[in-house]
């Protein structure tokens, strides 16, 4: 399944300003971006180009200084902190560069975590988490703790945690940044597979053109603006 044309999210003239007066610094200078359901978008750009700020706004963890963010038909700017959290809980999944798994917690429990906050019962949690781990190819590793897993495996657990709730949007912040090229390819294949087979929209920040090449669309940031927006 590829892009089906339905708009998933829409950024309109988003600016983000840090600091006040003289020390004012623009992280985003008015960007507009529309992402459709089922797209795989790579976000590129040098450090300080505003791509991380943009990701934080997409992930409802930060509010823009100006402009509008529509997630489906919801104006995110009008939501309270709690409502944005609930939006994350129900529709978003996150994958980070540093994996961000809970230490001293088994892979299974890590994957169960988002279900716990969704109020899913214990047994159903177990079943869904096992399924998600199987999807990322980690059947049999359920009881291993992060420090007993390789980097690639840890990132797979993180991806399992992100998709166990069947999110509409998967936000991946340099998911291959800490991995060697072979592990990176495996992770990218996994993301592409999730995008194609499950229709999960993926927005991925990356520095590496090799990784960006997996995406259908590349958005290039520079100095708080979108420099290029190319579809393959």
């Amino acid at each position: 399944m590829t892009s089906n044309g339905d708009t998933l999210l829409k950024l309109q003239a988003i600016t983000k300003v840090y600091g006040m007066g003289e020390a004012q610094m623009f992280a985003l200078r008015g960007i507009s971006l529309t992402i459709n359901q089922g797209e795989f978008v790579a976000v590129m750009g040098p450090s300080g180009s505003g791509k991380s700020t943009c990701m934080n706004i997409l992930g409802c963890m930060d509010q823009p200084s100006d402009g509008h963010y529509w997630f489906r038909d919801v104006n995110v700017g009008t939501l309270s902190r709690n409502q944005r959290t609930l939006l994350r809980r129900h529709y978003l999944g996150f994958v980070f560069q540093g994996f961000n798994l809970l230490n001293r917690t088994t892979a299974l429990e890590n994957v169960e975590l988002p279900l716990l906050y969704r109020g899913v019962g214990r047994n159903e949690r177990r079943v869904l988490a096992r399924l998600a781990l199987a999807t990322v190819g980690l059947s049999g590793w359920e009881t291993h703790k992060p420090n007993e897993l390789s980097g690639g495996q840890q990132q797979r657990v993180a991806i399992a945690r992100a998709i166990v709730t069947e999110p509409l949007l998967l936000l991946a912040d340099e998911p291959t940044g800490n991995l060697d090229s072979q592990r990176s390819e495996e992770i990218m294949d996994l993301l592409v597979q999730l995008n194609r087979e499950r229709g999960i929209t993926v927005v991925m920040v990356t520095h590496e053109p090799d990784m960006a090449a997996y995406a259908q669309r590349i958005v290039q940031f520079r100095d708080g603006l979108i420099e290029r927006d190319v579809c393959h």
Partner: protein
Amino acid sequence: MISKLLTSALPIAVREMQRNLMRSVLTMLGIIIGVAAVIVLMTLGSGTTQQVTEQIASLGSNLLMISTGKSMGPMQSSTAPKFKLADAEAIAREVTSLVAVAPQASSNATAIFANQNWQTNITGSNERYFSVNNRQLAAGRLFTAREVRSGAMVCVIGETLRGKLFGASNPIGVRMRLQKLSCEVVGLLKAKGQSSMGSDQDDVVILPLRTFQRRIAGNNEVAMIQVSAKDGITTDAVKQSIRQVLRRQRHLSAAEEDDFNVVDMKEIAGILSGTTQLMTSLLSAVAGISLLVGGVGIMNIMLVSVTERTREIGIRLAIGALGREILAQFLVEAVVLSTTGGVIGILLAVAIAGVLATLLQIPLAFSPLVILSAFIFSATVGVVFGYMPARKAARLNPIEALRHE
């Protein structure tokens, strides 16, 4: 809503405690010690109070003690001439509302029988001594009024002395030595245990007063007169009559103060139990402070834990945990720590108080109220001291928390 918050927070909190078992135990230690100290002190304190009250009740409720010297507060007096037997006789004759009057003199001396000897307390008194002091016979007989008048060489002994001198053999009818005096043991008193002042009331020999004065003390002094009043008579009126008699007997002019004092045992009971209660509350207050310190320890650890787990909190927030769910998690963790500490403290206190009460021979007076309030207090400590760190965790910005190393 709240129950849903708790059901998700409780397993997380318990798991977190298991992961940091050592730290959890150390954190709980403050609460454990605090709770245990409060309960042990309050239990032993009320046991002591109860014991004092019981002992004084066993003295007889209408007992008055008359001793020489000016009254200078409880148990203290300046020196003054001793009483004479005639003083006691005058009281018995003139104060009508009395049941019994027992003049007394006593000293310490060595009692000897066969090859055993034992330093003991020797008291000379009359036949009324036993009823006034609520002493019952275990064997033999008491000495009679006639023996008291004639100064017969007979004595009644206490259980401790019997054990030390006679062992397994029957002391009744046997002669033992008290200094230069050889006297016949005619009776054995039932054991009574420690007095409220801590002396052994069974390590005694009771002689007729005259025998004691002539053979042991070598004078005719009477150190103390015990008096028991009839039921239903106000002791203040009795005290007043006794004072009039004694002032006349001791030739005190109107300008002079009493050089003796009359103490109602009820007053002493009040003073003593008041003192032990005060001590109990003071010690418990000190122990209560250690509970507070334990609470500060929990707050400290929870604050450290919030900082240490900032990244974890960031992950949870990003994944979709609400601020109040994070708050509930940390608050529940603090409360679980403090109440677990409270329960362990209570169990420890039960064990310690049990052992100490046996060692100190104090009745074990557990109060469910004390235990319940210690538990509630420890839970409250968890809520109060856990709230600040929990709120700090709940208010973290997920972006910054995720960046935290």
